[in-house]
């Protein structure tokens, strides 16, 4: 049967904040834009973001983008690219106003301006007093933003392919990207979407770990597609474990709880963050707080019968503040921990939350790869949001900078696609062999007979990732992990799909996701093994210090041959002086 084909000017894969903010730029022009999403757009994981989005609006306390930039550079442990960070922090301000104009129901101050709260790692005047930079819609900011962006795309008549799963990118022999092969989940039929520009906006990959705040859908689809198209992934060893997941479950309790005045205690009731970060205390950077919690538990000061978590105290804030500013958290605490935060502290432990690394791009969202001694743009390919690495988060992301990243760079990618369409009026010729390769990835799952199940291999993989590429990272633990992961990867061809039906076959989708988890997870484990220093979220007891002499550089992992390469950090901002590396204390 002939393969169905559709043609658009631009194809956006993923309908979270990055994809929808790219799409709305394009939809407001006369470009033909298609958005492919494996779930209905408002199910995308942006919906779960709680605390807010950073912008130096100075609505509550004095602020400016330059201070925001300093905090982000410091938070990144000096691995973030300072040109991209300057761009993001400047763009933050108009971006948040644009969101508000688009209908986002931000919480308000008495003077009618957008409410802003304190978050970790924020300071006034380059490391001074705590700032309040996080614009919030109660503790449902991601939900409010995602719905507003979807609504604006409905207004602009963006063409949505809801519940279509992207299988692989299609590229020609020069490496230009021509679109993607996708699977209509409802019918099980493949569809080839040709586009002059393709934007990967597929979000994160927290499902590579067993305990995660991430949704079932966060399986690293875009990062894996990029790897299979020969594109390296950058800085994948930097994976953020959020300090406050609900213990044993992983659901997130926003940093906004601590921003509103909540704090952590151990079994002795001690406010232990005072020992680890005497100034910022509970609002130290996320990597610092996560390590502190893990240390408390390891040293026997954990709470509960298993002494395996700490407590987040909120009850002193009073019912008014909790109901007004943190209603969703109160609800989650009741449902998942059986605790009403107004009366009792919440049991928490770090949970796999966010990948700082991703597909390397420039500040316009264009994907860039090494070429000779320099770099070049991959024609026709963009990436934005958590699947991309610009890099603004470096070795550790600050709370409130993730919604900002997806919005700023989703928008930037959309605008650059508009520019590129002016130059590229025609589609490039299709490349049949690339289509066949993508089809082979799909039809491979038509093989019948006995074999391992997707579930067995997925469970083993996620456990191995958690044990060997999680918070504890020594040479021994990680090299054993990489060997185990490679052995598991060798078993992938033996996995069989027992359900061969076509209509809404979620088992088939999960099989395709399993391959993506493997490609993305191994990039994390391998990059982590190779980096012999501690920086940001990457903490190695055997190399406890940051080593700027040898390691102030970005890693690049290539799938073919599990090869590593490195490139320098861009320390020169666009217009201001560079922030030189300093010791990072909070």
């Amino acid at each position: 049967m002939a393969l169905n084909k559709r043609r658009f000017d631009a194809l956006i894969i993923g309908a979270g904040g990055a994809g929808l903010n790219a799409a709305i730029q394009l939809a407001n022009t006369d470009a033909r834009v298609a958005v492919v999403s494996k779930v209905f757009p408002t199910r995308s994981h942006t919906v779960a973001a709680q605390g807010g989005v950073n912008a130096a609006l100075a609505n509550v306390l004095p602020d400016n983008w330059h201070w925001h930039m300093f905090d982000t550079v410091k938070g990144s442990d000096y691995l973030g690219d300072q040109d991209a960070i300057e761009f993001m922090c400047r763009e933050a301000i108009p971006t948040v106003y644009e969101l508000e104009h688009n209908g986002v129901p931000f919480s308000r101050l008495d003077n009618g301006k957008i409410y802003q709260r304190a978050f970790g790692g924020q300071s006034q005047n380059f490391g001074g007093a705590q700032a309040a930079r996080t614009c919030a819609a109660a503790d449902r900011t991601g939900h409010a933003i995602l719905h507003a962006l979807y609504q604006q795309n409905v207004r602009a008549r963006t063409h949505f392919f809801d519940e279509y799963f992207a299988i692989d990118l299609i590229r020609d022999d020069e490496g230009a990207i021509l679109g993607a092969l996708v699977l209509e989940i409802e019918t099980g039929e493949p569809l080839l979407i040709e586009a002059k520009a393709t934007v990967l906006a597929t979000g994160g990959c927290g499902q590579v770990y067993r305990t995660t705040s991430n949704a079932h859908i966060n399986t690293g689809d875009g990062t894996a597609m990029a790897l299979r198209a020969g594109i390296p992934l950058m800085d994948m060893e930097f994976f953020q474990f959020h300090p406050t997941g609900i213990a044993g479950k992983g659901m997130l309790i926003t940093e906004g709880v601590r921003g509103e005045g909540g704090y952590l205690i151990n079994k002795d009731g001690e406010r232990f963050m005072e020992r680890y970060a005497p100034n910022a205390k509970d609002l130290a950077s996320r990597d610092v707080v996560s390590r502190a919690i893990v240390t408390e538990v390891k040293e026997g000061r954990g709470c509960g019968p298993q002494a395996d978590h700490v407590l987040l105290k909120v009850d002193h804030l009073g019912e008014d503040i909790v109901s007004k500013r943190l209603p969703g958290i109160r609800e989650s605490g009741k449902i998942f921990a059986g605790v009403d935060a107004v009366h009792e502290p919440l049991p928490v432990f770090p949970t796999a939350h966010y990948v700082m690394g991703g597909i390397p791009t420039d500040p316009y969202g264009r994907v860039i790869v090494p070429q000779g001694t320099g770099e070049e743009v991959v024609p026709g390919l963009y990436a934005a949001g958590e699947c991309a690495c610009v890099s603004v988060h470096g070795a550790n992301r600050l709370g409130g900078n993730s919604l900002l990243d997806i919005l700023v760079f989703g928008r930037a990618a959309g605008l650059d696609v508009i520019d590129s369409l002016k130059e590229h009026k025609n589609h490039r010729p299709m490349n049949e062999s690339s289509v066949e390769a993508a089809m082979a990835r799909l039809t491979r799952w038509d093989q019948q007979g006995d074999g391992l199940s997707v579930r067995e291999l997925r469970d083993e993989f996620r456990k191995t990732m958690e044990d060997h590429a999680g918070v504890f990272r020594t040479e021994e633990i990680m090299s054993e992990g990489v060997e185990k992961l490679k052995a598991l990867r060798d078993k992938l061809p033996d996995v069989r799909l027992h359900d061969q039906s076509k209509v809404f076959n979620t088992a088939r989708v999960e099989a395709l996701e399993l391959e993506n988890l493997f490609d993305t997870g191994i990039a994390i484990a391998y990059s982590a093994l190779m980096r012999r220093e501690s920086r940001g979220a990457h903490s190695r007891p055997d190399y406890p210090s940051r080593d700027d002499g040898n390691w102030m550089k970005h890693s690049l992992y290539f799938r073919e041959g599990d090869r590593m390469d490195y490139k320098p950090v861009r320390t020169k901002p666009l217009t201001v002086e560079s922030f030189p590396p300093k010791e990072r204390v909070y």
Partner: protein
Amino acid sequence: MKFLVSRYNPESDASPYMQAFDVEVSRGMMLRDALLEIKRQDESFAFRHSCGEGVCGSDGVNVNGTNKLACITPISELKEPIEIRPFPGRPIIRDLVVDMTQFYQQYKAVKPWLVRNDPMPEQEILQSPQDRDKLDGLYECIMCGCCSTACPSFWWNPEKFHGPQALLTAWRFLADSRDQATDERLDALEGPYKLFRCHTIMNCVEVCPKGLNPTKAIGHIKNLMLKNAV
């Protein structure tokens, strides 16, 4: 614990049937965990789900006759045997997966976006905390569809009656002090069906997993219409 689950694969089944599964339940288990366990036993079992914490709105199902969001429904609250069916009144695609096209069309029909005619200010459009409070209980909707697919008026007239979800959304924009399309929005809701097919049966209020009140929102719209007509 015994679970009875509705199964239907259009490639092999003439009509839906119930299949029994035994699932070992543990303390704090949610209905979604049980559905995942059933999928571990039989990978051909299909249902939608994602965030697992009640914000993405993917996993609405009918449990013992009531629409619920599986990921925030504790097993301990349910009577055995637990019968799980797809949302009533929607075409079944497979197992618990239903076709929600009409539900989304009704949502789009109320023009669910903020309309401003004035030029945009350079900064935010100002809104008092009191005006912002009017959006509480409205903007939190996750579009799971529990309400509309529990509504008899929506069962009978899904193509003409907007249904509680879309009407809650309509009021969310009417109630927003920043929105400037009040008259157009109200005009568009005129006629015997779109709004007025609501007979205040209030199933929507009972089932909303986020504790929202579409019936009240519909009442507000009717009052505003009346006020504007005078």
